[in-house]
């Protein structure tokens, strides 16, 4: 397949660039990564790092909450050096559990915007995702879904779908609202959206988008890349479904669109701290930032790196300015509010 070839070719080129950028060979050895993010593209990313640094990357992919328990049980005997998660809330929980250590460097400070990392360096974002509204083109005017608040409007009674609030993306979405506007507002919003549900939450973000495309609802909450992926799907039925819907970055006239990160932090009892920091630095380096964006359809963490063409085609947008550690701080409260309004 030409797509595969070009992907691989791109990865090779980028890793060569990274090698050149690094100049001298690194420390060698290995670095062990616990990863709650399992994109195919991560393999390419780590492969490029291995070539550039001479440090072998061993990965244990699992889910974030269970990795936390494993780290807790392993304590100082752990072999893990770096933890990767696809959500700031999970990184915050690991930090709270005392499983991460502050780690910083000039390169990290320079490359990661302050809002997208822990102030003391327990974790660092390396790519961004936006939580957006997907609407059916033949039923909704974009102006009607310009804000997340619009989803509570009576006009959408029985027309909204969203996934379960057990999912961390929804928890973080509500947590950021708690941070900005307080718990009362958050409760009213969650209750309003809940009142407009077309059905009880089921499935993942992709299922919500498909439901909108199939006419079962008019609008859905989803992460941007699920939509992007559908537009590029190998399955013609998915591409056809993506044709019927469009994406809006909500709250452009207000606080901005909610964003979250894929990020990583150095494990408290890491045996190979230096290598772990080096991998962290690599993840936010020019080479990796340019490499990863087109591979996994997330936005680069760095404002100075242009997103991949498909992402750029979605248009530039204003981001919500909530410091991401707030997502973790309010997560439990968000879960309670969801529970209260009956959005499970």
């Amino acid at each position, binding site marked *: *397949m030409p797509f*595969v070839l070009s992907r691989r070719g791109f990865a090779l080129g980028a890793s060569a660039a990274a090698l050149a950028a690094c100049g001298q060979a690194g420390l060698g050895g290995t670095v*062990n990564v616990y990863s709650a993010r*399992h*994109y*195919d593209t991560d393999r390419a990313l780590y492969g490029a790092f291995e070539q550039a640094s001479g440090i072998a990357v*061993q*990965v*244990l*992919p*699992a*889910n974030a*909450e*269970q*990795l936390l*328990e*494993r780290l*807790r*049980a*392993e*304590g100082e*005997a*752990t*072999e893990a050096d770096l933890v990767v998660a696809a959500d700031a809330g999970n990184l915050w*929980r690991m930090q709270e559990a005392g499983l991460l250590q502050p780690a910083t460097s000039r390169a990290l400070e320079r490359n990661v915007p302050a809002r997208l990392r822990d102030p003391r360096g327990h974790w660092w974002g390396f790519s961004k995702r936006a939580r957006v509204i997907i609407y059916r083109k033949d039923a909704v005017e974009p102006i009607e879904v310009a804000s997340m608040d619009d989803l509570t409007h009576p006009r959408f009674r029985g027309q909204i779908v969203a996934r*379960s*609030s*057990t999912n*961390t993306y929804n*928890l973080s979405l509500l947590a950021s609202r708690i941070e900005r506007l307080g718990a009362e507002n958050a409760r009213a919003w969650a209750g309003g959206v809940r009142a407009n549900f077309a059905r*009880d*939450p*089921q*499935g*993942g*973000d*992709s*299922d919500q988008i*498909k*439901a909108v*495309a*199939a006419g*079962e609802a008019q609008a859905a909450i989803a992460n941007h890349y*699920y939509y992007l*992926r559908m537009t590029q*799907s*190998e*399955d013609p*039925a*998915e591409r056809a*479904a993506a044709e019927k819907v469009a994406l809006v970055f909500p709250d452009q006239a207000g606080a901005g669109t909610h964003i979250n990160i894929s990020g990583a932090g150095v494990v408290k009892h890491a045996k190979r701290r230096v290598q772990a920091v080096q991998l962290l630095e690599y993840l936010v380096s020019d080479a990796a930032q340019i490499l990863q964006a087109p591979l996994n359809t997330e936005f680069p963490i760095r404002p100075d790196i242009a997103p991949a063409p498909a992402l750029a085609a979605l248009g530039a947008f204003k981001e919500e300015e909530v410091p991401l550690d707030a997502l973790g701080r309010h*997560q*439990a409260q968000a*879960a*309670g509010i*969801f*529970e*209260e309004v009956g959005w*499970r």
Partner: protein
Amino acid sequence: MLGPPASSPARGRRSKMRRGMNLIARVDGLALIAALATLICAAPAFAVIGFALAPASAGLAFGADLLADGAFGTLALTLAGGSGAIVFGAASAWLVSLCKFPGRGLFEWLLVVPLAAPSYVLAYAYAGLSWAGGISPVRIEGFWGAAFIYAMGLYPYIYLAARAAFASQSACALEAARSLGARPLKILWRVALPLARPGIAAGAALACMEIAADYGAAQHFGLTTLSTAIFRAWYAHGNPHAALQIAALLLVAALAFLSVERRARGRASFASGRWRQLQRYELAPLPGAAALVFCTALVTFGAGLPLAYLARLALVHAQVEDLARPLLNSLLLAGAGALVTLALAAAIAVAARRVDGLGKLSLFAAGMGYAAPGAVIAMGALALFGLARAGGLVGGLGVGLTLAALLWTYAARFAAAGAQPIDAGLARLSKGVDASARSLGAGPWRRLVRIDLPIAAPSLAAAALILFVEILKELPATLILRPYAFDTLAVKAYAYASDERLLQAAAPSLLIFLAGLAPILVLSRGLNAARAGFR
């Protein structure tokens, strides 16, 4: 099953003394090994209960609602899915065992095939088939959708147990009924079913516990059960302690459930030593066609349709990934896990028959883990490991220790799936045999090797194959307790499915299914040879 030989009132005090001596005599190798096996299998579950009882750091907001809804959801789902599985399993077993209709021979083994499909894979496949954009006119969703999936995926447990029971029933009883002019349905209702009750109860117990433990399908379908409540408390509320508390509830419920099952099974021991080929009842064309349609539907909805859907997805996703390594890892883990669990389960099941009271208790204790999600049992094992590490007993989770912890968790989770069939197999041993052997001076080991094991051999084989397939399908414990760079098929499928890349998830899911198929077919064939009196 057998108590001490001396309990006649005439013997008085001496008998008491003798009983004491007997107890000591029985605290021999076998009993010790059984106790150890129970301890090993039950430890993670007990750890979960123990940690749940520890004082809470933070209460769970709205915990009562969540708990009540979860308990109700689990109860309703177990009832609905479980009774579906029982009806489908018992009816199909009766049809292929005692009736003649077109395709009977084929269905005899085809009906087991759905056992190879993990519930979570069925859930994803049916969601893809019938939710928005799917081709199915009927939507498989919500409560009834999940109940349908459980019934379709789990009826083989009852089918296998019931078939074995029907096969080992005394032909005489059935023929007597027939010669007295009873119609087939009446024979089923009045003779065959009551005779098969212990087997059906054992299979139903497994199916119901599996439903209670399921997280993947229930979560995808948006249901609130005790299992989804566990993960809601853990993941959403960030409160693993509350998760353990809910899990403890589930474990205790499993204990109660197991004892109810045991009571339902009764003390009955219906086995008859005599056996001969039963004359199957020839169904008239119309009922015969109905039987054909019924069995076809079971195989189609339990396996064929989801399988075809996965195959189509795998074909759409043209990029071929190398799954040889994960396949090998899956087979290795499933093989090793099945052997370890089988050995422990066998020790427990044999002891349960030999040692009064305590033996049965150990069967319950070791069986609990089957009703809890694998992630919870893994958390129990991890916490115990953490304690051992803090106490300086072990070091870090290196490859060896990780694998050991993983095999241990498998045993803790699946001991019931091994012990139940073995126990049911041993139930065929009529009580007199062991007593005669003992009166002839055979020691416990000799009786084990010469009587118990040969009698239970077919059930041991069946248990081994069930365990192999269970572990092949197992996800959460494998996910968190495996060493670096050790992916299995289930882990591969999870990684893609959790990222909603169902096209990529299709190939590994399909492979889990196919890898489980071979042992299941062996299991199905072997059952024919497992009839009582056949040796």
